């Protein structure tokens, strides 16, 4: 079976699963019939079918699993959003449409991701610019400054900055990896490269510290610092960067806990939320109660107790940061673990693409994107389950939010491009190789 037929098969399966979930929600509240319900199904199925067709013609050798996983996650998210607030599902459906549009644009404009390597500094500037813009122009929501309000929309620039920074780092580190990995001297028996190559590490550290202090968000800083350290390690294979980066980040986090009240708040409620059960720990505890209430099997889609009688969700921000709590409540431990496994599967495909990729830039790009995607997932699920301090970050494809879904669909487009090129270079026909060369 060709890659595209596998993709289509799994998309059909994903469509069937999401239809069942949707029907369950619908049956759970069958007195409410409105146009949202019909638009939901049509928009969703046609979007992914169109994306499949696009991939079939433009990137025929791309990985066949990423798109079905994306579709399934998006369907779970959309169903749960519909379940929590039907009106928002319509908006989210529109954002999915926008995201699909950006996916198409990314594929058509970039065509071959190798071109992006030429624009690495522009990408780096864009990424940095987005983060600085957030710090300067951002609005504080729930204590953290992660949003820019413009033109009637709320944009979370960090979602896009994530992509730009990974592209920049993949290019930059691939170029400099030789220099960065050659030890020139030893300190206490540890081989270290020339001091000047630690410059980027320090710049990144300062940036993450700035994010902690000005965005007041532990999760974002952790995400960007980790992306940098992981890419540095993958490029140079020198563990010293991980040790140093980890140490520096720990120091930055300690400073932030001491200096930034919001970060400190999050940290104390993480350590012990019980004394703050009706204040700063309310959200986290309600999340834990909601998750624990799911039990092993869950109440079923549309049947959990997620809304109070006045239609307010049991956990504030249930449809965005806490959507995982809603899923865990309704689908139980099995469903929640299943969703986590979907993310592991996605991450695995990403890393697999990286390992198979023929060149350093492709490797670092795919691995960086897969890592960023996986870590973001870990940070938010870990946050709502109190494994790590809670931060306001979205669950990719599932959380309500336009920036998240569009940026992550672009991420999928990039991964598909890398995998297409890899497969063509490794085993493609002459015709395909020629076409690829023409794009470059």
């Amino acid at each position, binding site marked *: 079976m060709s890659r595209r037929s596998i993709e289509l098969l799994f998309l059909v399966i994903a469509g069937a699963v999401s239809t069942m979930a949707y029907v369950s929600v619908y049956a759970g509240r069958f007195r409410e019939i409105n146009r949202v319900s019909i638009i939901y199904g049509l928009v969703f199925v046609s979007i992914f079918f169109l994306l499949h067709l696009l991939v079939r013609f433009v990137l025929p050798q791309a990985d066949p699993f990423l798109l079905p996983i994306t579709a399934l996650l998006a369907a779970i998210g959309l169903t749960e959003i519909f379940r929590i607030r039907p009106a928002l599902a319509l908006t989210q459906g529109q954002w999915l449409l926008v995201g699909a549009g950006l996916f198409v644009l990314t594929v058509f404009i970039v065509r071959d991701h190798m071109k992006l390597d030429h624009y690495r500094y522009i990408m780096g500037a864009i990424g940095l610019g987005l983060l600085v813009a957030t710090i300067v122009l951002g609005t504080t929501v729930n204590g953290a400054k992660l949003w820019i309000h413009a033109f009637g929309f709320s944009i979370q620039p960090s979602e896009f900055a994530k992509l730009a920074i990974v592209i920049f780092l993949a290019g930059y580190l691939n170029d400099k990896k030789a220099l960065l990995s050659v030890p020139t001297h030893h300190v206490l028996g540890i081989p270290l490269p020339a001091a000047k190559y630690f410059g980027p590490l320090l710049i990144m550290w300062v940036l993450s510290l700035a994010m902690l202090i000005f965005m007041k968000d532990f999760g974002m800083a952790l995400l960007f610092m980790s992306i940098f350290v992981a890419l540095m390690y993958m490029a140079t294979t020198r563990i010293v960067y991980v040790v140093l980066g980890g140490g520096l980040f720990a120091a930055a986090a300690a400073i932030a806990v001491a200096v930034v009240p919001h970060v400190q708040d999050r940290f104390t409620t993480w350590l012990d939320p019980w004394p703050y059960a009706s204040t700063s720990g309310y959200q986290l*505890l309600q999340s834990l*109660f909601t998750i624990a209430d*799911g039990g092993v099997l869950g109440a079923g889609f549309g049947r959990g107790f997620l809304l109070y009688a006045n239609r307010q969700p049991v956990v504030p921000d249930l449809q965005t940061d806490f959507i995982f709590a809603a899923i865990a409540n309704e689908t139980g431990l099995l469903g929640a673990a299943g969703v986590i496994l979907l993310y592991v599967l996605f991450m695995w495909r990403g890393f697999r693409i990286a390992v198979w990729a023929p060149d350093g830039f492709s490797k670092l790009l795919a691995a960086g994107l897969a*890592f960023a995607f996986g870590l973001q997932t870990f940070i938010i699920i870990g946050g709502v389950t109190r494994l790590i301090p809670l931060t306001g970050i979205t669950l990719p494809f599932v959380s309500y939010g336009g920036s998240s879904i569009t940026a992550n669909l672009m991420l999928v487009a990039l991964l598909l491009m890398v995998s297409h090129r890899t497969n063509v270079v490794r085993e493609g026909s002459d015709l395909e190789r020629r076409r690829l060369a023409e794009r470059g």
Partner: protein
Amino acid sequence: MNKAISRIFIVGVILFVALILNLTWIMAGRAQWFADRPENKRGIAKEMKIKRGDILGYDGSTIAGSLRRSGYYYREYPQGTVAPQLVGYDSVRYGRSGIEDELNDELTGQSTDLGVQSWIDRILGRKPKGASVQLTLVPAVQKEAQKALSGLKGAIVVLDPKTGALIASASAPTYDPANLEDDWARLSNDPGAPLLNRPTQGLYPPGSAFKVVTATSGLDNGKVTPDTEFIDTGTYVVFGGKVTNYGGAVFGPNDFTTALTYSINTTFGKVGNLLGRKRLISSMQRFGFYQTPPLPLPRGTVVPSGRYSKNGLLSPDAFMDPLAVAWAAVGQEQILSTPLQMALVAAGVANGGRVMKPYYTQQVVAASGAVVQKAQPAQWLVAMKPATASELNIMMQRVVNAGTGTAAALEGIQVAGKTGTAERGDGSNLAWFIAFAPAEDPQVAIAVIIEDTQSTGGEAAAPLAAAVIKTALAQPSLP
């Protein structure tokens, strides 16, 4: 490079395994533990899908009803606030209190003794229907008591001395359970503690109202008769200290009845030492002091009365020197009492010395209409001999007819009572009045306490008691 990439992937997998393990711990291992946490109100919220039984007054009117709005039931209070501290609230966010909490299983139809239909419903997976609870509270009397307390701090408890039925239980300042969620921050921070059910949770020095207990002990033990003569010089010197009268008054020669009528401290101090600690404490215990009154309410919301130290209730055997006994006999010396306990003292005298078990549930009616539980009045304690009760009854009538409690006198109804004024260190008084009426065939027993007043029990509390008694005796029926 591939090796490093694989390593990073493995780290990622480890992180996700940690997520799943933690999730398993929360959702399978500790699910019940989370469900049982008091901060977790999800159980309450789910029960809001059940039609909660009504809470009715003794007259059958609805005190707390159930209103359906988009699939959930809410409490509504068609009569406004009626004994909100006793009836309690039912809030998703803040949980339950009072009777709403105590009788939750009945009100949500989950109680096992609600009959066959309830079992069938449960087996068939039908939603249970709540049983309604009819209280012994008489809304008209309750409202009169609340009106009497409006703008004041204090409590009024009205009991049926013959059955122990709680006719009214008012606590001020008060709150509106209909607006609980909006007002919560203000209510829970209010130093006046409007959520506190003062009748069963408020501990106050009983002051001279306690002399009824001392008199019971003296008469019952044969140490005094109503006619025993004493001489008051304004001061009773004992054990290196002294007992003085309220306001420095001097009464000269007086018999024991007169000592109660005018609340002469020195005489009661002497009676205290005629009795000694053991007999006095024993009489207290026979009224119910030193144990938690058996009024079924959530744990900790009914507190025992007795002698307290900073660390809580003292043992009945705790040592007291003669000076302490003398002051205890006039209701000071660390003796603290709830309004409910003082109402039980009045009720005990009124009922010929027999203290009935206090209760508030008249009957529980299942959704099917079947009466599944009915009040059965029972004797709790015997406080004194019937003869002692008769003598005390007459002495307490004198208090109202000619003594400190004249403000409680009613046209055509003989009231028997006792005032109390406990001075607080800050210059304010606690004003008490305990009473029963009609004296010849008591239908109601009452305790009134007013905090933060400059007046005496006879001035501040007695008139309120009179108003409530008048309303109660005008009712067509009492429990």
